[in-house]
């Protein structure tokens, strides 16, 4: 069984909610990412999402855009991101790692080459923001054959038939986008999230994690009442904007993640 399903099943059995954290690979520096991944796990993250930086991250708000720009400024790439995952796996074989990014770097590397490299590095799943299921048949086939999960976004604007179409190919977990907007936006509406999750659960058994707009223990708890887990991204990436030593950034990140973890475990 893939690490993602294993982790989420175990959490469900324990009656706990999943906490997924997002960092941009190579932000604020390439050396930072590997120790940051370990620090996030130690603070209570269950799934690590690693953003693959792209020159044109269309779905990101200003905070994560700047993270992509910082990472690209010192030449972070899909290749160097896979290398970080490989190094992470040297000491951590249980925490799932999901790559989240845009289609073009994967297309440029070549689908088959990417899938082989991802398996070899120890990646567990891929979420490609701008590759909807109808354009992803070839890549999804290769990913499935290799045992990698295909994570999909579902949006508040997704119609019921669209939800069915996506859940037919979604595996690992479904990532529900809590609001209309880019990453890091505000205004969470828990009731509308609950309504949509009910629709999603009619067509899939796969756990549903909710992201976009979750920034602290309170917002995480509110959403986790109705979801299987939450994704925290911009609230972590914004920390990278402070010109602090890495040790202080690790401490800031760990404090926030541990706080959210406690909040989720209090449910």
């Amino acid at each position, binding site marked *: 069984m893939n690490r993602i399903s294993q982790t989420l099943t175990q959490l469900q059995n324990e009656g706990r909610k999943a906490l997924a954290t997002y960092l941009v690979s190579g932000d604020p520096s390439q050396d930072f990412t590997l120790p940051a991944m370990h620090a996030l796990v130690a603070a209570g993250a269950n799934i690590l999402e690693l953003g693959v930086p*792209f*020159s*044109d*991250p*269309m*779905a*990101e*708000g*200003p905070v994560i*855009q700047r993270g992509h*720009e910082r990472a*690209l400024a010192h030449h972070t*790439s*899909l*290749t160097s991101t896979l290398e970080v995952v490989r190094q992470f796996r040297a000491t951590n074989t249980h925490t799932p790692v999901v790559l989240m990014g*845009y*289609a*073009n*770097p*994967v*297309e*440029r*590397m070549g689908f088959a080459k990417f899938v082989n490299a991802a398996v070899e590095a120890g990646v567990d799943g891929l979420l490609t*923001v*701008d*590759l*909807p299921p*109808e*354009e992803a048949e070839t890549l999804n086939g290769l990913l499935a054959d290799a045992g990698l999960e295909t994570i*999909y*976004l*579902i*949006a*508040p*604007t*997704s*119609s019921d038939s*669209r939800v069915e179409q*996506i859940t037919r190919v979604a595996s690992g977990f479904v990532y529900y*986008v809590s609001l*209309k*907007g*880019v990453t890091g*936006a505000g205004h969470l509406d828990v009731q509308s999230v609950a309504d949509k999750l009910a629709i999603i659960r009619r067509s899939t058994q796969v756990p549903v994690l909710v992201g976009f707009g979750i920034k602290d223990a309170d917002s995480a708890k509110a959403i986790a009442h109705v979801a299987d887990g939450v994704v925290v991204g911009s609230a972590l990436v914004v920390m990278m904007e402070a010109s602090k030593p890495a040790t202080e950034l690790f401490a800031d990140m760990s404090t926030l993640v541990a706080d959210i973890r406690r909040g989720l475990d209090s449910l």
Partner: protein
Amino acid sequence: MSLETGTTVDFNAQPDARGHFGPYGGRFVSETLIYALDQLEEIYTRLKRDPQFQAEIDHDLAHYVGRPSPLYFAESWTQKVGGAQLFLKREDLNHTGAHKINNTIGQALLAKHTGKKRVIAETGAGQHGVATATVAARLGLECVVYMGSEDIQRQSLNVYRMKLLGATVVPVTSGSKTLKDAMNEAMRDWVTNVDDTFYIIGTAAGPHPYPQLVRDFQSVIGREARAQCLAQTGRLPDALVACVGGGSNAIGLFHPFLSDASVAMYGVEAGGFGLDSGKHAAPLSAGIPGILHGNRTYLMEDENGQIIETHSVSAGLDYPGVGPEHSWLKDLGRVNYVAITDDEAMAGFRRLTRTEGIMPALESSHAVAYGEKLAASLPQDAIVIVNMSGRGDKDILTVAKIDGIQV
């Protein structure tokens, strides 16, 4: 595929139901926008067969835009160049000074039918921004235009025009601060305000159905040019020349001629400082296929799949991608894609201005410069139509700066 086999392709059957032109096009967007694109496709598919909608567009094109635009035999220029007869399709004479209004008239009518009260647009040279602000003013719609801060500097006249028309111009400071970044920002706005906002894309690129509907709205250029050429000369032209940034004026001119096998076509990309310099905006001449801004198409990117910064003297061509139908036409060999450098374009700008008293936009100057090269290589009885996609008034400050003159 060769030109000969290209003639057996049914050019009117493209794109397919999912927006593909061969391997290009499609719909590569985040999930939030899928419903808005589905909605747009549904409305457009219904309205394009509606005679009343077509009549509305035709009425606006005739009485508001000032169509048909002339097909003008540029006799002095032809004599100066010394070769084929050069005709100009005068899109520069349209209301607001460029071909862009053909598309914004159509999309604004679509917006009206969706009931959305807010329109957004991206712009490079500012011509599409002006054309969008214009139709928004007329229909009483709120209008927000995203423009790279770099382009705001070099196209300050158009920025002020948009403001006078009541639009809000939002400077985009991310990435290369040009057209591609403006498009990213417009997409982000659309994702956030998708319920009440209509995105008027300015070129024949982006996610399906935009490349198709922009082409359809711009095809009035080619339909008119074809009829005018037949009426004025008794035959079809031998060649068409148009500049290609995203490629909307070019596809508008080319599309109605695609099945006319005798008509050669040249899409002219921005060669910047030269293709060898790497500082240009010519993805069809020097790029490879990839995925950006909702479609698969030829792009300028590095070995890691990152989009690279482009350069052109003309803001409207300064874009690392191109409309997907052009990518397909390139692979088919139906259209030849070539590049003209900044210097060559400037020379074309000056020559046409002096010989015909017609000042082309710097974008169109690329087509002018290639049209001269091509005409010089052809016999005197050959006919070449150059698309004068816009007028040069907006570029006066850029030209003055190149000349070292403070205006």
